[in-house]
């Protein structure tokens, strides 16, 4: 029997991030996982980040997390998505090399002295006097006051290829029946599904007829200061290719719909609408003449190609047929068939904003087990759950992040209040304070918080402090330099002659005042780097909008400060209708602000709750 502070079950994206966060706070961590090579395994597409997801990765990084630096070290190419849509929705994304990703993850985890990785299957949870006490594993008992479950799709996982079904968490891995244990503890468990495309042999693809997609020249990274000692790659970026499905592809799929696990009636759980299988696309959007397919390499030294957009659960012979109807893939060899997977997840409304299970103190849940999908969503939750598991074990302050601070806060608030009807993925449209929550200011938003909780490594903290000082100085300079429209005109800058003298910070909002022009007028700007000036210009551009939102943010914070008792019996609250009681009891909001975001709650119901609020902050670590 070993003693740890925190046990993490499963070394997927959530588990690795949870382990790192707990270890950074000084906890002795056991990371228990099925296979030694689990850490850093990308079970689906070989890419990290994207729109909304890229925000999550930069936020994880700002809080001292590891995903950003690992992805940076393993990248094949990287791009900034949504470049023309406005800085608030810029989404950094990297294609990564699977092998390098695993290697970099192993290196980063090895740097954490209080972390032990144990290869074993966790078979049960130990609960003593209503609290978590440890886990039962295939190699014996482990005890700890806090356990984080991050078992991904492995709970009751069933894979489908056509009418073939097989138990398993993903191809080549066994499924786990911890789900039964969770049900027995009173946690609400239900089923979801997702799918993955066939993997193709790159040597059998006719690349010469395809269009290439290259990374961005400036090679954006997730981690601003993260210093990854992992080898990195130093090799040149490699492109993806683009092809399309066509009428013939759609006809083949339509002819064989009955054989699909999805449409043949073998699966009835809910899958993500934004990650539809090709069957879904053909059924729901049959009028389209074709859908784009991205052919993504899985690594520098890997012949495997991931055909992004072709997720399917049709039988292998049909997969072969329809894939070969696509341009460039006429002779393609399938290495592994695509499949759909059904799995158990816990209704995240059973969790606190710190991701602790309300019913079982000491138990934390993170990742796909909470009904999300995606590496980034999993990792972000892992960080929060790991930080809070350490908080519980070592009696440290808890980590909670609200909607005004980060996408992480938006996601956890959505999950714990609304639950999930389909696998939850991050979108920028979910964030109401989108203009404040940018990838380019994640460090300013979160690094001080991470530092206060001991999550940020010293080298990163120092680099952040230096950058912040430089930024403050630059901002002060922009505030001091002023000009009238007349003066600008004398430098050939055409702005409306309204006679209004403005600071350079204000002028940066005007399209005519380009950075090159500003540098011409004010040579002292030489002290500010291009990146920093661009970032300050974004602040200037959004300043008015953000100021307008300030009132809303203040109102939200005010409502968030009004705590509702964790054990409030909504049925006893005078003036609540039956329907309101039901909705509130399911979501169990801990603040008046959270109650206001529960779907269908009326303003009058909020008024009825008001007498039950107090100014005390609720305690969050379960």
């Amino acid at each position: 029997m070993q003693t740890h502070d925190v046990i993490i079950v499963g070394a997927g994206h959530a588990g690795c991030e949870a382990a790192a966060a707990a270890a950074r706070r000084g906890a002795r961590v056991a990371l228990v996982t099925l296979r030694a090579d689990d850490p850093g395994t990308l079970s689906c597409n070989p890419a990290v980040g994207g729109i909304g997801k890229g925000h999550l990765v930069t936020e994880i990084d700002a809080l001292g997390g590891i995903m950003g630096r690992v992805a940076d070290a393993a990248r094949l190419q990287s791009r900034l998505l949504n470049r023309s849509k406005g800085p608030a929705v810029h989404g950094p994304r990297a294609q990564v090399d699977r092998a390098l990703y695993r290697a970099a993850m192993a290196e980063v985890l090895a740097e954490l002295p209080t972390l032990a990785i144990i290869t074993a299957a966790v078979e049960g949870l130990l609960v003593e006097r209503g609290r978590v006490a440890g886990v039962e594993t295939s190699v014996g008992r482990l005890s700890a006051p806090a356990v984080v479950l991050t078992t991904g799709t492995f709970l009751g996982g069933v894979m489908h290829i056509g009418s073939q079904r097989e138990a398993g968490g993903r191809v080549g891995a066994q499924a786990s029946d911890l789900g039964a244990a969770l049900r027995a503890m009173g946690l609400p468990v239900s089923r979801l599904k997702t799918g993955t495309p066939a993997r193709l042999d790159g040597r059998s693809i006719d690349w010469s007829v395809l269009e290439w997609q290259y990374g961005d020249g400036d090679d954006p990274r997730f981690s601003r200061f993260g210093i990854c000692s992992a080898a990195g790659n130093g090799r040149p970026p490699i492109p993806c290719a683009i092809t399309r499905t066509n009428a013939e592809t759609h006809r083949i799929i339509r002819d064989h719909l009955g054989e699909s696990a999805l449409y043949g009636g073998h699966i009835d759980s809910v899958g993500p609408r934004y990650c539809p299988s090709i069957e879904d696309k053909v059924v729901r959007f049959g009028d389209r003449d074709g859908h784009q397919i991205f052919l993504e390499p899985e690594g520098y030294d890997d012949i495997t190609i991931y055909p992004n957009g072709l997720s399917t659960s049709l039988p292998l012979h049909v997969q072969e047929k329809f894939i070969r109807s696509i341009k460039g893939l006429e002779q393609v060899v399938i290495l592994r068939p695509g499949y759909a997977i059904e799995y158990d997840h816990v209704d995240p409304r059973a969790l606190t904003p710190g991701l602790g299970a309300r019913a079982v103190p000491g138990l934390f849940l993170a990742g796909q087990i909470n009904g999300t999908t995606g590496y980034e969503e999993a990792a972000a939750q892992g960080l929060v759950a790991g930080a809070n598991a350490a908080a519980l074990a070592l009696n440290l302050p808890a980590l909670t992040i609200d909607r005004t601070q980060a996408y992480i806060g938006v996601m956890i608030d959505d999950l714990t209040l609304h639950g999930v009807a389909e696998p939850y993925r991050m979108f920028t449209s979910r964030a109401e304070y989108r203009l404040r929550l940018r990838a380019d200011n994640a460090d300013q938003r979160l690094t001080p918080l991470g530092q206060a909780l001991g999550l940020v490594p010293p080298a990163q903290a120092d680099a952040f402090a230096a950058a912040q000082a430089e930024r403050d100085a630059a901002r002060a300079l922009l505030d001091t330099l002023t000009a009238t429209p007349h003066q600008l005109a004398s430098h050939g800058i055409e702005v409306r002659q309204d006679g209004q003298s403005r600071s350079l910070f204000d002028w940066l909002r005007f399209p005519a005042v380009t950075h090159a022009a500003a540098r011409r007028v004010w040579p002292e700007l030489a002290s500010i780097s291009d990146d920093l000036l661009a970032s300050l210009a974004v602040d200037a551009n959004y300043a008015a909008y953000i100021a307008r939102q300030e009132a809303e943010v203040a109102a939200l914070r005010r409502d968030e400060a009004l705590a509702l008792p964790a054990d409030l019996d909504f049925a006893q609250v005078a003036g609540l209708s039956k329907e309101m009681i039901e909705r509130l009891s399911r979501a169990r909001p801990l603040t008046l602000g959270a109650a206001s975001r529960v779907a269908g709650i009326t303003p009058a119901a909020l008024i009825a709750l008001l007498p039950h609020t107090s100014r005390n902050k609720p305690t969050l670590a379960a």
Partner: protein
Amino acid sequence: MTDTIAALASGRPPAALAIIRISGPAAFAVVQQLAGRVPPPRRLSLCRLHHDGQLLDEALVAVFPGPASASGEDLAELHLHGGPAVVAGVLDAVTAQPGVRLAEPGEYTRRAFASGRMDLTQVEGLADLVSAETASQRDQALALAGGALGRLADQWRDRCLNVLAEAEAGLDFAEDEADVAERLDEAARDQLADMADELAALIADSARAMRIRDGLTIAVTGPPNVGKSSLVNALAMRDVAIVTAIPGTTRDAIEVPIDLNGVAAVLIDTAGLRDTDDPVEAIGIARARARAASADLVISVASAEAPQWTGDGALRLLNKCDLAAPDVPPDVLAVSATTGAGLPALRDWLSHWAHNLIRPGEPALLSHARHRAAFADAESALGDAAMASEPVLRAEALRAAAHAFGRIAGRVGVDDVLDRIFSRFCVGK
């Protein structure tokens, strides 16, 4: 636990009928106790009501199970004979039941609002309905209470959310499906321009709606001693005794409500607008002066003894026609406040004018300053959206517009933007 509330819903007894309403979880238990049974829902049934072995009344009873009732809760109505002793006896018996108490003023409405049976505009409409004095005010309040404005705001919110869904799809999914991005831009601009135009017209019309609700203002002006006050009183058919201003009631003396054939108006007697040392009176006078200055109609009054009009009122009157008979110019109405001569013609003229302005048959929904402000916020947000320099700022402005419309009906909570996106675009890789 929610209390059950009971109150007399009809006028004060004695009356032919009296209706007691009981709302809340114990409502049907009360009926069971008093009537010995709970009659079938939504139908009037004859029941004998007893309490402590005593027959109280023979009444018509109707029960309405929640949430499909007016209050959203279980609701019972007892239609009694309207004698004071009957009503008092039954109310006592009802409130003697466990968990039942007398309702506070407005509590039924509050419960209907709490249970989501009514939105904010309907509550406002109900309040307007109770204080409606003219036919057009009643019609307007009925439309509001019936949810017409709530529906209008919802329709607008819906339109905003549809454009927003397109904009958001362009932000969250443009990388997945190339066609999302192109479809978006021109379509959005056109739609925004149309919406802004329509909204501007609606907002312009809100002046009419507010006039229906607050009444048209008519300032009666002219030199001293032309008989302005007597004219105002004659038009309002009101007791002359009130004319003597009592300090503090100045406003009542100066602003006199009249009903112009179903349209509410206020006559402002500028003879009452004199200087005063009483601070309270001064406030009332300053306010009336301001209202007179912005009146919908200015009437210039002259005396038949000296037919000289000051000011440039849209309507010129010649008062005291019983005392002298000068030539009357064609655009002038001759009246006598004393004999009543010419008053019917004046009333006709005023109703005609009022009806032209108000168009009582046409619904005018933005009758509250709150509604107008929300629509104006939405209009300016849509303007921002059309002008936005980058797509994310356009989406931001559209969110603000949708929220402004949501505020009107008091809608809170999540917008179903993602649902709209998924139903329209093939997104996701």
